């Protein structure tokens, strides 16, 4: 168990180091000068040069990488070129939106997907299964920005139950902030739930063919109990893997939904930083996301051990 974990940890650290190099070098190749972008078309070249100097863009490449990487180790992400505030502050401001949003969306999607998966698997091949999977198929195929706009028109424009977008901040009370996150979370959760339900169903059906399920049924255990106690637990590994991937995606891959609801989330920060060539912000956020993916994967590996005692026992 310890060796298993140590191995995972080492792989994680190696991933981070390689990612930092790749991210840094890749963004260096992207054409475009943040200084020229800030000063616009009316500024002279000399002025742009002056601003580059002030931004520290004229230092050699290796030096800038070491500067940045050693900063990362001390959790000092440097200062944004365009905003000229510490990058960590920018990320923190966005995380208070993106993190709760991802958590709510994932919770919603799990709460929908697992019961639907169970329902469908238990009725494999019957009308209920077909109907549930047809709905899931629509959920997978539906573009999420379109679904988001539909939600906006129904709940914000027509019923006026929630705001059409924006985020009031947690400082103005928990309820207004939650209200602003409901629709985006729903728009994010449903397509994810559709995928997760299909995965859950497939994993369950595979498990239901196992001998021990037949044994459990043969000894007179009711179907419901078999489902919960034996089948679901054994089917959890693929489900957890997908959930881990989904969480990482929900944290920053939600730029489209953030645009529809004009939420100040991480995805939009990255998008804005890329267009403004605020490279240090892009680099730092990407690194943070790599770290998040590594951590989530570690957590998923750990949870395998939790749901599957065989992994725990293997030394």
């Amino acid at each position, binding site marked *: 168990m310890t060796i298993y974990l140590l191995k995972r940890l080492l792989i994680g650290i190696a991933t981070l180091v390689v990612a930092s190099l790749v991210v840094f070098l890749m963004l260096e190749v*992207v*054409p*475009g*000068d*943040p200084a*020229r*972008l*800030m*000063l*616009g*078309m*009316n*500024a*002279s*070249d000399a*002025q742009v040069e*002056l*601003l580059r100097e*002030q931004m520290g863009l004229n230092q050699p490449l290796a030096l800038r990488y070491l500067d940045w990487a050693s900063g990362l180790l001390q959790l000092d992400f440097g200062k944004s070129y*365009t*905003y*000229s*505030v510490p990058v960590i502050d*920018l990320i923190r*401001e*966005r995380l208070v939106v993106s993190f709760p949003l991802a958590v709510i969306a994932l919770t919603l999607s799990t709460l929908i997907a697992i019961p639907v998966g169970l329902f469908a698997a238990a009725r494999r091949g019957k009308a209920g299964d077909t109907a549930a999977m047809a709905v899931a198929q629509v959920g997978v195929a539906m573009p999420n*920005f379109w679904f988001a*706009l539909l939600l*906006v*028109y129904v709940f*914000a*424009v027509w019923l*006026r139950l929630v*705001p*059409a*977008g*924006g*985020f009031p*901040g947690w400082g103005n009370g928990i309820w207004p902030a939650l209200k602003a996150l409901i629709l985006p979370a729903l728009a994010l959760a449903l397509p994810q739930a559709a995928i997760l339900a299909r995965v859950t169903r497939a994993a369950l059906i595979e498990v239901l063919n196992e001998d021990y399920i037949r044994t459990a049924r043969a000894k007179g255990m009711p179907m419901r109990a078999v489902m919960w106690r034996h089948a679901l637990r054994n089917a959890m590994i693929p489900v957890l893997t997908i959930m881990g991937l989904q969480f990482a995606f929900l944290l920053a891959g939600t730029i489209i939904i953030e*645009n*529809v*609801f*004009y*939420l*100040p*989330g991480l995805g*939009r*920060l990255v998008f*804005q930083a890329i*267009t*403004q*060539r605020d490279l240090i912000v892009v680099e730092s956020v990407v690194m943070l996301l790599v770290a998040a993916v590594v951590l989530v994967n570690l957590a998923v590996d750990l949870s395998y051990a939790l749901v599957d005692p065989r992994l725990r026992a293997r030394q």
Partner: protein
Amino acid sequence: MKQWKTILAAAALALASSTAAMAARTDLVLGMPLEPPHLDPTAGAAAAIDEVFYANVFEGLTRIGSRGEVLPDLAESWTISDDGKTYTFKLRSGVKFHDGSDFDATDVKFSLDRARGESSVNAQKGLFAPVDTVEVVDPTTVKVTLKNPLGSFLYNLGWGDAVIVAPESADTNKEKPVGTGPFKFQNWAKGSSITLVKTDGYWGDPVALDKAEFRIIPDAAAAIPALLSGDVQALPNFALGDALAQVKADPRFKVVIGTTEGETVLSTNNKKPPFDNLKVRQAIAHALDRKALIDGATGGLGTPIGSHFAPHNAAYVDLTGTYPHDIAKAKKLLKEAGLADGFKATLKLPPVGYARQGGEIVASQMREIGIDLQIIPVEWADWLKQAFTDKDYDLSIVSHTEPNDIDIYARKDYYFNYDNPAFNKVIDELNLTSDEAKRTELYKQAQKILADDAVNGFLFELPKVGIWDAKVEGLWENSPIQANDLTKVKWVD
């Protein structure tokens, strides 16, 4: 008796609540597509900074009004010496910055010296280049001496880049702007909104709004539902595209189409063959169908232009007839240039709707005379590097949004690669002239030269598409300068 009391009380209550309902709203939420990178108009070119802070939070010696006219602002009056070189400004007294400190002549000197100083990163530093000295005569008098007379100096002082800042707060204006205007900065929730509130004890006419919030809505598809749901009450300048049709017929809103200072041109690399040949440029001009372009790229809202000048300007001449749409003529000119079979070139397009949509149409119009354009979409940063800085382009489509910027054609090494001594002479003369009638004449000459030379394909003036609640009054119809002036905005019933 008791019943009477109840009725009276109810009536009183009804009256009270109805007067409360009648008191007009004093808050406004405006949607804007781009977020300012920081909040200091003297340290960046981003239009979004001025769109929040110009005239609302920051003020200059002069300011530009809704029709593009120069108005006194922090300077209540001025005198100009006979040689046109010395400007003496009489400043308003009793003006305070939002941090409570007093405004006086030293702040003016500080601001102007800072903007033109060696370490200045002012995006329009060129505006201040003609300034020789700035002297404080007394706390309410400033004398500015120019190196040479400059007719547009008072106008230049009205730019957002020339606003007056205080030495104590200049370095922190990017995060916490401190100005002298009728609104003061309250809060910037990055990625989300910027909130301004009314300044108590403002020196000028009090404003009707207590609070104004600029909300960042990057997507037109999101802006419309925000407006329909009442979350946002005004989209003063938003490229809504097809979404406009959705609200146009709705009586709850006013749709106002105005003009801007954005001359949209088919930028042409004048030094790169075959575009260095006047006949080729003329052929392109003849092949362009402005009507189709305006319909396709701006929903029919743009105004055709024949040179680099805004149609709402008093000195504008309509030169759209210089090279009328004429395919046969265009083909003939290409033949004379020795390119009867046409040629291949690239068209680099920045990521804005008018350019990307306009580009497709331009390419198909050029195909009619045998010019085969390869469309290359680029990001802004990329465009600025490739086309603007390195001049590595053949054709491009860009709106030049700076006001009164015909002088860019006289700039050395500007990305059009245009160099015409006759034109430069007109601009030099313009800079030395303050007489309005003479300036108008010179502006007309300048426009004519550019049109005849077919320097760029002159396409259309970018429209300002504004839409707001029908009960909101006082927002600008046109955009003579990048601004959302809220000083006259109010709710009416």
